[in-house]
């Protein structure tokens, strides 16, 4: 109750209610997220239930076009799956992977970046060269490597079940250096400032200085990076699907749907790539707009008004 009161009187809520873009984005994102996670209830078909899919339904156009089948609102894909349902299920996968992988990247990157920038010296060199090694092994190489280990451990059959955590791990591990370097740069600039010196002088432990004093001041580039990285992670997964290292093709994500639609770009079956494309753009757009808002509100260095 007290928390609620605190929230009600907070600056965040105040500015949120006065920002129509943020509110609009929040509403759209909520609707999208709800329909993604509620897909099993909302979706008219279950694209994961392969018994219901009929190849003869392949590439039907959306209902408002000729030759459409009214049970497929937005048409069907090349396998005869209902586009709308597949997109909803796919969005769930993409959201989990995008946000999960970005969080993993951020956690690894922030911790290593803070340590690297604050401690300096040998630890810094070591961590930053490790980042260089990691950068040289792109997502693709990490995926190839981990998938080989994965297959040796669990066999071919398990992949379909464990694909999502696997992909979060792959994309999370592959792209932490971006965060680490960004955080480190900010830390380098911050740690010579008076307030850090002051904290040190009064004898605060360095862990507290790092987390409570320096980290909040490096938030702004982290947030900018994060919103971009979510989009990036979703698309990374799509690129991996292309190499057979992403989601299994029987459980497509939004990104891999768009990717497979690439083949149909000249064929006239525009809905296969355009609908998921539009949904992805919308999803990332609102995430980014909210990101902008959060960034402005949370940033301790911005004086509001």
């Amino acid at each position, binding site marked *: 109750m007290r928390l609620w009161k605190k929230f009600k009187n907070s600056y965040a809520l105040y500015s949120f209610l006065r920002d129509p873009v943020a509110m609009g984005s929040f509403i759209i994102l909520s609707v999208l997220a709800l329909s993604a996670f509620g897909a099993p209830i909302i979706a008219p078909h279950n694209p994961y239930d392969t018994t219901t899919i009929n*190849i003869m339904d392949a590439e039907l156009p959306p209902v408002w076009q000729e030759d459409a089948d009214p049970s497929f609102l937005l048409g069907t894909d090349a*396998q005869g799956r209902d586009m709308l349902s597949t997109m909803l299920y796919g969005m769930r996968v993409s959201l989990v992977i995008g946000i999960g992988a970005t969080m993993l990247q951020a956690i690894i990157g922030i911790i290593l970046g803070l340590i690297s920038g604050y401690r300096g010296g040998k630890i810094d060199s070591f961590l930053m060269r490790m980042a260089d090694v990691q950068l040289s092994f792109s997502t693709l190489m990490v995926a190839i490597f981990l998938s080989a280990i994965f297959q040796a451990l669990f066999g*071919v059959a398990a992949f379909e079940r464990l694909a999502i955590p696997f992909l979060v791990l792959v994309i999370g591990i592959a792209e932490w250096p971006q965060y680490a370097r960004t955080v480190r740069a900010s830390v380098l600039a911050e740690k010579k400032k008076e307030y850090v010196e002051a904290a040190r002088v009064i004898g605060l432990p360095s862990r507290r200085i790092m987390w409570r004093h320096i980290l909040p001041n490096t938030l702004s580039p982290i947030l900018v990076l994060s919103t971009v990285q979510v989009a990036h992670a979703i698309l990374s997964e799509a690129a991996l699907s292309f190499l057979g290292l992403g989601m299994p*093709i*029987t459980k497509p994500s939004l990104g891999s749907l768009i990717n497979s639609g690439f*083949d*149909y770009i000249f064929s006239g079956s525009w809905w296969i790539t355009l609908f998921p494309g539009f949904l992805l753009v919308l999803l990332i757009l609102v995430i980014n707009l909210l990101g902008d808002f959060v960034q402005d509100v949370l940033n301790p260095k911005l004086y509001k008004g």
Partner: protein
Amino acid sequence: MKKLLFLVLTLALLATTAQGKTLKMALDADPESMDPLVQLSGGMLQYSHLVFDPLIRWTKDMKFEPRLATKWERLDELTVRFYLRPDVKFHSGNPFTANDVAWTLERLKKSEDFKGLFTAFANPKIIDDYTIDIVTTEPYPLVENIATYIFPMDAKFYTGTDDKGQSKDAIVKTEYSFANENESGTGPYMVTHREHGVKIVYTRFADYWDKDSKGNIKEIILTPIKENATRTAALLSGDVDFIAPVPPQDLDRLAKHQDINLQTMPGSRVITLQMNQKRKPEFADLRVRQAIIAAIDNAGIAAKIMKGDATPAQQQGPEGFDGYVADLAPRYNLEKAQALMKEAGFEKGFDATMIAPNNRYVNDDKIAEAVVSMLSKIGIKVSLKTMPKAQYWDEFDAQVADIQMVGWHSDTEDSANFSEYLIMCPDKETGKGQYNSGNYCNPKLDELINQANVETDRTKRTAMLQEVERIAYNDAAFVPLHWQNLSWAAKKGIDIEPIVNIMDFPYLGDLVME
């Protein structure tokens, strides 16, 4: 400076008009090497037909036509005599003689990729400069088929050592060799510029022997464009004149396009699924295998996923092949499939695993995906993993999954070749059944193929090969899906229809461009 530029431009312009037509073409890959014996692949054989010339070659209707051999006759069970064309010159200027054929044959037997095709061949007998007897160690019915692989090379040109001290005839797969970077054949085109993976330029050979050829292309610039959509775009935007293959999903659009000349033709590459009887005991039950075949609507796959760019198959070799049996009925019947599963005691179905490549055959991963949903209708829950071909074959050999996809094109354009690799009992000693990951094994079928391989009487042989297809059909040895069609597209005015064929070797030497 300006004047000079003008001069250069005019000269360049004059040069191109004097030389005649230039054909810009985009394929999915460029030839791996300039040495025709370094690798046995579609791309290399296409190259060989441009730069070299075979003794004889296939025509559009699967007959043989004379090239460097004007005629040939079988002397006895072991010998075929080839009469060679006189007055043929290599690109180096050396004259072509029987000695070059013998030399090439010897080199073929050294090539890792080609020696398998030439195991039955003994040393040939040179009768005179323009007559040669090709001799086999046992009766061999396919001498003509194999003769299409004999592209005589310039023995003099390739003999000796190069400036690096290496032997000029060395066949080297992964490093520099003289033959990898130089050529002298008798073919209509010479390689005048080559940057591997980027482009290769062919220029018409002035002394080409075939003066009757109407071909009027003086220069061919081949660029590999692997990405399907980009290749189609390059043709539509006019950046290239000729593309192959055309992705199935673009066929419709290109067929309707008024400035584009699209050609398609049933091909001979069969796409199949193998059901591993050793790994998955359920598949040892004939009824289960029959149920799987009956559950898979291969006509639907050909129509929808392949966009009609494939011919549904019930057997290995397509029409036109000796073993083809016309009356093998389509087997798709979902109710029967369910009944068979029930009969076999698997009414509730079972789980299975499957692997397929995702960049080897046309729409391979999409086909596999469709199969998964079809099999789920008879209760078989398949978990599928698709992967790029670089990783696929190791997994295939290791038989990591219960159902595995494999496509096959017969190098000999003969039915027996399919069975030898795909359904004969796997035998490490003889190498038979090398790609039989289903572990299907029927000694009677093996016996028939072995007999057919030494039978030179075509009628008897055809009967044997047809019997083989029937046995495989009745045993539900494998799931035949379809034969991939072949497709080419060019700008209007480029008459590609007469020069394309089922082997996918466009005879560009004879191409006429308006």
